[in-house]
């Protein structure tokens, strides 16, 4: 990486280090006392249901929004007072495609290179086009690209100024699996070069590819750590119930199990039903009693991230309901 004087990243332990961030829109508490740390070279997954405050949190971190309270640094720069420096060193990919649809791919990249004052601009733009396989389409208008290509263009554009940190807001929404896979391989290549990545997503397979995860709901951070840590922390136990019979009966079984003692939640995966609970003994007892005489086979299985997240989402919703 070329270190330009104004692009020198301050030495700091964390790429992102924010503490106690709050943001209200009207009387809606969108980000609630958020603290998180991302280490350099880390791919940090940011998960949470729709409207949970992921986008707002990312905007707070890169200085696009001002927090109501709380403080923090991004690449060692203060998010309140040094947003200019943050902008120069961060690549932010918005959730919605935000490049100019009436400009060609080349023109979009050229504009971005100019506003970031990229040295040897022409070469940088040309390299970006080649790396992303967009060379032949350079003169195509961005608005005529398909979703997958738009996403590649957006990534190329936010990588152009060689940022030290990437903030990616649901970058793979609506992108086909092969393109998603390529995208994640690219992210891992970048992380290996020391670039930090904060990426929000709804996909569990993507969550599992992150070094670390944070789960937020209603603006509040509910869990943080590696996938294993998050799963372990919830102390959940899961049984897989397999049946040869059609899904319909499995759905009926799921209905029978709901609200039985020890059962927290059920989730169907094709012909397999995952039943999760907190008390392993009680769960096993309930399952054995229910399945007597039925053509199912039950096996202990690992609790997955998805079960954990659904559990987190439910408990947070119940906790909010319980609040006066």
């Amino acid at each position: 990486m070329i270190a330009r004087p104004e692009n020198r990243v301050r030495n700091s332990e964390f790429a992102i280090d924010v503490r106690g961030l709050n943001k209200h829109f009207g009387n809606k508490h969108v980000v609630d006392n958020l603290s998180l740390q991302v280490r350099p070279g880390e791919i940090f997954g940011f998960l949470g249901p729709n409207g949970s405050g992921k986008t707002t949190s990312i905007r707070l971190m890169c200085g696009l929004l001002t927090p109501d309270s709380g403080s923090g640094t991004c690449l060692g720069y203060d998010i309140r007072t040094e947003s200019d420096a943050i902008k120069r060193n961060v690549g932010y990919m918005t959730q919605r495609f935000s490049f100019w649809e009436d400009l060609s791919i080349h023109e979009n990249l050229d504009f971005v290179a100019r506003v970031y004052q990229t040295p040897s601009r022409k070469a940088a733009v040309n390299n970006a086009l080649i790396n992303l396989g967009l060379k032949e389409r350079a003169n195509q208008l961005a608005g005529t690209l398909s979703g997958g290509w738009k996403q590649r263009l957006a990534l190329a554009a936010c990588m152009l100024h060689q940022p030290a940190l990437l903030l990616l807001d649901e970058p793979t929404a609506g992108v086909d699996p092969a393109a998603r896979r390529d995208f994640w391989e690219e992210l891992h290549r970048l992380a290996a070069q020391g670039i930090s990545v904060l990426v929000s997503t709804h996909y569990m397979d993507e969550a599992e590819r992150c070094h670390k995860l944070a789960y937020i709901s209603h603006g509040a951070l509910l869990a943080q750590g590696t996938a294993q840590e998050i799963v372990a922390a919830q102390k959940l136990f899961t049984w897989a119930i397999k049946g040869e019979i059609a899904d319909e009966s499995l759905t009926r079984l799921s209905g029978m199990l709901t609200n039985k003692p020890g059962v927290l939640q059920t989730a169907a995966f094709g012909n397999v039903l995952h039943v999760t609970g907190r008390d392993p003994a009680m769960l096993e007892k309930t399952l054995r009693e229910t399945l007597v005489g039925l053509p199912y086979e039950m096996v202990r299985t690992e609790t997955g991230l998805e079960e954990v997240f659904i559990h987190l989402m439910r408990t947070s919703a119940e906790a909010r309901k319980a609040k006066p």
Partner: protein
Amino acid sequence: MNRPPFLFAFSATRFWGVVRKEFLQLKRDRVTFAMIIGIPVMLLILFGYAINMDPKRLKTMVVDADRSEFSRSFIVAMHNTDYFDFIRELNNETEGEAALARGDAQFVVNIPSDFSRRLVRGERPALLVIADATDPAAASNAIGAVTQLVGSVAWKDLGGSLARLNGSPPPFEVLVHRRYNPEGITQYNIVPGLMGIILTMTMVMMTGLAMTRERERGTMENLLATPVRPLEMMTGKIVPYIFIGLLQASIILLAAIVLFGVPFVGGIVELYGILLAYIAATLTVGITISSLARNQLQGVQMTFFFFLPNILISGFVFPFYGMPYWAQVIAHALPMTYFNRLVRGIMLKGNSWPDLWPDLWPLMAFTVILMGIALKFYRRTLD
């Protein structure tokens, strides 16, 4: 970190990046581009031709009490000037007055019964033309044409018998009564004034939508995430429209001279100098609107809010010194008031810099103050 303080940090690279982007987007936006050329052409045709300063074939009625060879020959001569279209013969002057009041006729020609007899006797009789001069522009040229006729008709038709009067005062006179507006002053002021109207409309509207368009297309978030500074963004967005404004003004200027024969007695350098000052003023109005408006509809509304007083009280439609004092005070806060004076001063009076300065500096001050307001309201975050 040796970063220069915010206000003085202006990067030419970033500025030029924005300028290039705006030019490219403008090039792609065919409809907008067509409008930019189309608006001046359309307004020129409407104001220049439809609003005719020299109307012909005006409705005329005649009360011919004389019924002589001479009176008929005079009516034919009036008809031949092309200004008058004789639609009816009336019995008496009262009918003529009524027709004028109703607007059925714009002119009533009154030839008294003993006209030709007195003419032959050399008594210099008078012939009365009553004109509806509510619109002074409509009547004045036609009236001019009638007075011209006095000499020619008399000599041609009555040459033989009246030859002895040759060289002496005309054998008869035409009395013209301008009804409803005795002053009847018209000037070549519509077409130069049109320059201000067209520039105000297109410049304010185009830039008024510049930032809101980014906001509505979702590209604003991207722009805000880049290191582009407000001043770079705003000036960069303005530059392409300076060229467009100059192009529009040139179209109007050319049409004013070639099609409408508006005199141009002043200097071309002065004209383009004040054009630049005025374009800068209108563009800053646009960019200020752009910073204030939340969406494109608000942008358009604010544009019209600004546009209407500029048309109505800047001296384009109504004579400036005919307005009440309070309206004049308000008008002095509008850039078009100064521009109207400047452009008419250059084109019609041949004013040079010293004459222009008193109206030029307010335009410049207006631009600087507004740019400050725009920068203050430019939202640097999404808050």
